[in-house]
């Protein structure tokens, strides 16, 4: 009984629930679940191009999910991956369109710009928490909206491409594209970078003194504080690094998929990534698996809408319900001196 409860209360139960709810959503839309699932899976795994697109979505989710994983493990609710992703993408797009050197080195510069941009965005929340005890949940959420406003302003004003009709930056020079992994698809080597980041994150959390202190801060903040962990510094570092990983993701979307920055960069990857991180049980390697699962949903959702006439937003309802189910697990210890919310 308790084994069953544990399994069903965890990621496995959430995935079962996801399928059940997807079926309900299809029935509500007047579509046979068989047809709906067929469309979903053909649209996501039915061929080389579909698989490539699923992996594109996987990559876009994996970076912010890893960032969220790091923050949650430190006991910090970073709900601002969306904004960090946008700022990272903006930094890479702006730099690539206007200042990038036309050398193979450019791509590293752009990725670094995304990393730094997202890091600054996460770091603001970290600084506000460390310095003023401002709750990171509210600050990261507010910063999401600020990021969008900033991006909107820049791409429709100072950074707007001179010949573009919509709000977007000048395209990057081809020399600063991320190399494509599967020819004639949108899949770049970003997926390799993302998996590399997951492996590094796992090593960082599991083996290093920094990771040890970070996990202690999340599991038992009072014990960490009392045993030599500088909590304000840890808060600042964790939220900065968390934002940086998400920002790196934004840069890979710009350099690998869009080849320019626009405000349609993310259809809410930063929020879906919360579900990804939780389904992956905040373990970097399982988060990779979870990102693939959600990549199937994201890529297949569009096909489902096109082929079976089920609105793709059903996918987001399912994600939300998965998060609700997984909330039954305890992710972050209750702090004696939490920031007020």
């Amino acid at each position: 009984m308790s084994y069953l409860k544990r399994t069903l209360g965890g990621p496995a139960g959430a995935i079962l629930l996801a399928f059940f709810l997807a079926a309900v959503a299809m029935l509500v839309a007047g579509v046979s679940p068989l047809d709906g699932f067929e469309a979903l899976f053909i649209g996501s795994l039915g061929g080389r191009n579909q698989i490539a697109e699923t992996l594109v979505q996987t990559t876009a989710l994996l970076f912010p999910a890893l960032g969220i994983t790091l923050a949650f493990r430190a006991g910090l609710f970073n709900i601002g991956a969306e904004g960090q992703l946008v700022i990272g993408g903006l930094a890479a797009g702006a730099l690539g369109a206007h200042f990038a050197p036309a050398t193979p080195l450019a791509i590293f510069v752009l990725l670094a710009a995304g990393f730094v941009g997202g890091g600054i965005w996460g770091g603001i929340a970290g600084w506000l928490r460390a310095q003023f005890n401002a709750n990171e949940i509210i600050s990261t959420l507010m910063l999401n909206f600020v990021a969008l406003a900033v991006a909107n302003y820049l791409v429709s004003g100072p950074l707007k491409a001179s010949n573009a009709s919509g709000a977007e930056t000048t395209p990057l020079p081809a020399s600063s594209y991320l190399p494509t992994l599967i020819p004639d698809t949108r899949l770049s080597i970003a997926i390799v970078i993302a998996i590399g980041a997951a492996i590094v994150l796992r090593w960082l959390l599991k083996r290093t003194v920094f990771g040890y202190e970070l996990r202690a801060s999340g599991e038992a903040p009072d014990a960490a504080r009392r045993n030599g962990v500088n909590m304000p510094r840890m808060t600042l570092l964790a939220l900065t690094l968390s934002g940086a990983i998400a920002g790196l993701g934004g840069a890979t979307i710009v350099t690998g998929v869009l080849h320019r920055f626009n405000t349609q960069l993310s259809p809410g990857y930063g929020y879906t990534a919360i579900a990804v991180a939780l389904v992956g049980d905040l373990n970097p390697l399982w988060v990779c698996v979870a990102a693939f699962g959600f990549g199937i949903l994201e890529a297949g959702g569009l096909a489902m809408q096109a082929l079976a006439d089920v609105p793709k937003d059903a996918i987001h309802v399912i994600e939300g319900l998965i998060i609700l189910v997984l909330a039954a697990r305890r992710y972050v210890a209750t702090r004696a001196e939490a920031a007020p919310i």
Partner: protein
Amino acid sequence: MEAREPLAPDAPALELRGIQKAYPGVVAVGGVDLDLRAGEIHALVGENGAGKSTLANVAFGAIKPDAGTVRAAGTVGLVHQHFQLVGRLSVWQNVMLGREPRRGWRIDARAGRERVRALARDNGLEIDPDAFVDELPIGVQQRVELLRELEREPAVLLLDEPTAALAPAEIDSFFKTITQLAARGTAIMIVTHKLHEVLAYSSRVSVMRHGKIVARFETASTSVDEIARAMVGGELPQVAQRSETAPAPRFSVRNLRAGTGSVALNGLNFEVRAGEIVGIAGVEGNGQTTLADAIAGVIPFEGEMQRPPHTGIIPQDRHREGLVLNWSIVDNTVLGRQRLPSARRGILVDRRSARADAEAIAQRFDVRAASLDVAAGTLSGGNQQKIVVGRSLLGDPEFVLAYQPTRGIDVGAAALVQSRLIEARNAGAAILLISFELDEILALADRVLVMYRGAIAGEFSGANIDRGRIGNLMAGSSV
């Protein structure tokens, strides 16, 4: 107020029959019969983990027993060891919570205030009904807790470690109130481990060990020694002997100020020398936590503090401050030492040395665990504390801060912890012992500093150590 018909003296007020309660892996209460008579003060004593609190909660009705029956001649009230008060509500609001007097849709605040004032007067308790609870000293908070139970006019009143946080003078006035209550026919049971109080105020004593009542005494015809032996089931464990040491200053504070409000430190000056244990005696809430926090570097302070680089810290609350409960024993061994060269290899945690350290602690402290990889949260309190203490003594620290190092653990584990502290002292460590148990201070300390309202109220050493005078200073009266 006088509505309840008082029970005849010696009439049975509470009957517990065959009470059993088991939790996964442990039988907390294993078949207990207990009678309380109207008008008696009955002491229930036993070691930590003997099942006293569980039994009290069963009698109160907060815990449902697996088997057995509870019969009470009226309402049962329970005063918790850890007060269950609402800090940001006033005294009268706390007392009347759930039974608020009304006028229309509103609470009748005046009636509530008057009710509490009358109740306090009738029971000889001085209190301001409009004071906010979290601004009251602990001794007064206890009066609120007591008033809340008395408001329900209980036939039976259970008191769980009621004097744990009280100064000696407060203890006297507390028992005066209790004795009056008993005289008016309330049956009272005190759960405690303070045997001197048991002897002074109770009429009967029941001793619990391993979930059973192992001895019953009439207080008039027993002794502290006899009760203590029944509690541990044999002779008391021996604690290590102190040896001569050559003292050199290791830790010192000069004009130390920290914290705010009633627990602020008002310029402390003292030092702890190598090879000595300095005991900080005092009633809880006189700035001890502020001092420990300042030493641990958790709060900012003013003034000077000389603290050697290799310091071991035994925090007060092992669950919250000492351990990461979800982590293994091995991982917990590293906590607090993660930046020491001996615990890491470059930027990595040295997992091999962590395991070796954990093994050493397990052996030296007789830690009982299935393996070193089980989560610390699954261990008993005594074993958890052994890990915290063992970890802080690893690698011969120059200075050790021990805050309530034996709180809530059984006598055997406590004796072991105390012995290891004395051995560390004998080997040259400077140890600062903060404890609310005067007995522990007197047993371990070479020097005693009494802390009262954030200041050192007196210092005693060697032959000058005098229990009575220390007790007076703890209560705030000058000698």
